[in-house]
């Protein structure tokens, strides 16, 4: 049955996230834990439901097990709906052949039939690897007001960093006149956030054409957007200001977690009118023991803390034994940090065991801060030393 929807969202979650190395070895990037109780995808999913978008398709193909189990029926995001809700969309076998998703545009192309079930006027394209709060309904209104074919959300970035982004050059009305992917000499600093609103009929036409082009890499940034611009379609930039962070690298993931400890940027998880929803573990409140010391940190439920924690992000069900010192670090769920361990400038994956008196990472030096990473499930022996910037991978099996 087709029920008319004004706008549905397609949340691209298929990428491997290889720049997160061991952290995405067994799970898709959107499922990477973030901020003491969330996973990266919670922010986009919560933005959808808070913006009153009730149909969200999630094309996925890389290591989807954890992501599937996490999203399941969408209940934590209020996306278990009679009509619509959240759908995991893996590539599937078709009568004319079988393909993986070849690129971001192809992932949408292969799901045209999914989208058409809802007969939408607009389709919102999102990526599952950004941390931000955004009211998409305002962007959709803007798109409608402008009578646009495509609207791209943009954010001002420091001009010296602009050459890392896709830069939009616009006229006074916000109409995009040209687009440059990672320009060496950027003309301005308005970077694409990878958030697009398309009028569906128009996008459908371009997806079909793009698929027919054997030279295309089937990517929104590389193919669809430049093609639409070249054809003179009405494309507008929607300016966004507020916190927005790409967490595609170890350093940016660490920084975004640390941003939650900073009063200016922590609002993203503390806004009562824009809650970030997550699948909640079943565990009692956190216990802070007699010998514990916690400063300037966020800690989640089910923890048993008996050591010192300074300026860190501690996930749920973490055990920190006595005489442990943790500073400027991220400790993911179910980790056990044994007596006397020291962890500085590190990301410690879920279900890890850090042995007694082990030393993970170290203080920043003149050369800068180097983040040590312990992959999920790894066991670090007593007295073992993991150097600053070192990455430990000791798991063969995905952690369930």
């Amino acid at each position, binding site marked *: 049955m087709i029920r008319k929807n004004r706008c549905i969202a397609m949340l691209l979650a298929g990428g491997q996230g290889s720049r997160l190395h061991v952290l995405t070895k067994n799970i898709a990037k959107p499922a990477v834990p973030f901020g003491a109780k969330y996973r990266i995808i919670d922010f986009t999913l919560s933005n959808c439901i808070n913006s009153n978008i009730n149909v969200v398709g999630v094309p996925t193909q890389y290591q989807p097990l954890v992501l599937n189990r996490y999203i399941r029926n969408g209940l934590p995001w209020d996306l278990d709906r009679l009509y619509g809700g959240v759908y995991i969309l893996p590539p599937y076998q078709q009568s004319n052949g079988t393909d993986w998703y070849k690129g971001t545009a192809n992932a949408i192309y292969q799901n045209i039939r999914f989208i058409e079930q809802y007969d939408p006027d607009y389709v919102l394209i999102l990526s599952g690897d950004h941390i931000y709060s955004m009211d998409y309904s305002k962007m959709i209104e803007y798109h409608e007001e402008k009578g646009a074919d495509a609207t791209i959300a943009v954010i001002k970035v420091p001009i010296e960093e602009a050459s890392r982004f896709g830069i939009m050059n616009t006229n006074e009305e916000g109409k995009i006149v040209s687009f440059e992917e990672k320009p060496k000499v950027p003309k301005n600093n308005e970077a694409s956030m990878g958030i697009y609103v398309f009028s569906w009929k128009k996008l459908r036409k371009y997806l079909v054409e793009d698929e027919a082009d054997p030279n295309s890499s089937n990517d929104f940034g590389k193919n669809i957007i430049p093609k639409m611009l070249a054809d003179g379609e009405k494309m507008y930039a929607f300016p966004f200001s507020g916190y927005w962070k790409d967490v595609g690298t170890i350093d940016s993931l660490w920084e975004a977690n640390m941003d939650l400890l900073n009063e200016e940027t922590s609002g993203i998880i503390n806004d009562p009118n824009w809650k970030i929803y997550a699948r909640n573990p079943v565990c009692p*409140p*956190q216990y802070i023991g007699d010998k514990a010391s916690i400063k300037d*940190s966020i800690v*989640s439920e089910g923890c048993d803390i008996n050591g010192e924690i300074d300026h860190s992000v501690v996930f749920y069900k973490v055990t920190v034994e006595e005489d442990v010192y943790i500073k400027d670090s991220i400790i993911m769920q179910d980790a056990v940090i044994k007596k006397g361990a020291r962890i500085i400038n590190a990301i410690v994956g879920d279900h890890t065991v850090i042995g007694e008196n082990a030393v993970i990472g170290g203080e920043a030096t003149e050369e800068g801060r180097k983040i040590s990473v312990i992959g999920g499930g790894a066991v670090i022996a007593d007295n073992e030393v993991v150097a600053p910037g070192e990455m430990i991978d000791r798991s063969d099996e995905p952690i369930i």
Partner: protein
Amino acid sequence: MTAVGIIFSEIHDHNLPEITKKRTLGSVPFGGRYRLIDFVLSNMVNSGITSVGVIARNNYHSLMSHLGSGKEWDLSRKFGGLTVFPPYSLSSGAGLYSGRLDAMKSILSTLEKVSDDYVVLADCDTVCNMDYTDIIKYHADKDADITVIYQRKQVADKRLNSTIYEIGEDGRVNSAFVGIAPDREDNVSLGMWIVNRNLLITLIREAIAVGRLSFEKDIIAKRAGSLKIYGYNFEGYAVKIDSNSSLFQANMDLLDSSIRNEIFKKNNPIYTRVRDEAPTRYASDVTVKNSLIANGSVVLGDVENSVISRGVHIGKGAKVKNCVIMQGAVIGDNANISYAIIDKHCVIKDGRVLSGHETYPFVLAKDTIV
């Protein structure tokens, strides 16, 4: 050997006037993020009981909103699941009941419809982690009509009525006594019973016919000779919340790691309603010792020997010691409170000083502003 569960959300003359003024005993907040009913409900679910009826009496709005569809206890089911029974008014008279037996009259048809062998009856004022499967097996092995669950201990609070069982060497209950407990160790009822379903239906029908009201006084006490009533001694941690001081003490017990680990067993977790709170935030110059703290709290002051619920704000320079602070309460900057139970959404303004005593905690009713 399947069972259905029946929970009495409010049955006792209790001594928690401030805390239960606007809610049933079952929805009294406990342990930082729970309500009392979560314990019995989770115990039933963890024991494989997937049909649970909750009998409500009055002030049950908070209970209904807490339970919702029962999905957080995995009780939102096509078959069975959670059913809340508000008072049921027949044309013959008022719908408010005055005893467990009286209360079950309204659910007689429900008990007749199911096919399970046993019914687990339980009050919701006991905090424990109990596996009913063992007790149901004991009940079946003894070929009992009724099994009462008790604990061998001395009643702490002498002002309140308790049910005491006299139990023979074979485990049979010879008699039951309801009243002020004598000053010695006794078999004290935990307010939980296993009953054969068909027998329970008969007992309820008889009760309707002759106007019996109380399950304990009219059935257990009077018919111990004619029915096969056995006792099961529960040896784990169990505490009945029947006064402000027991509510306070049971919260404090959770700071003991052995009790905490027994109540919050890994494989038999206690479920509760999810509130989507952010992680707890600790400021840079605070001292927090020996405390249980729930998510959504912001700790800008010092906390010691306390249980802090979800969404509590502890102001800068505040000192909170030996307290139970319930959800959403705000403790102002430089406030100093000790031995207090602060109910939901209370506001203690900056600099206020409040103190109770270990044996008589100061209790601040819901929404109070000091």
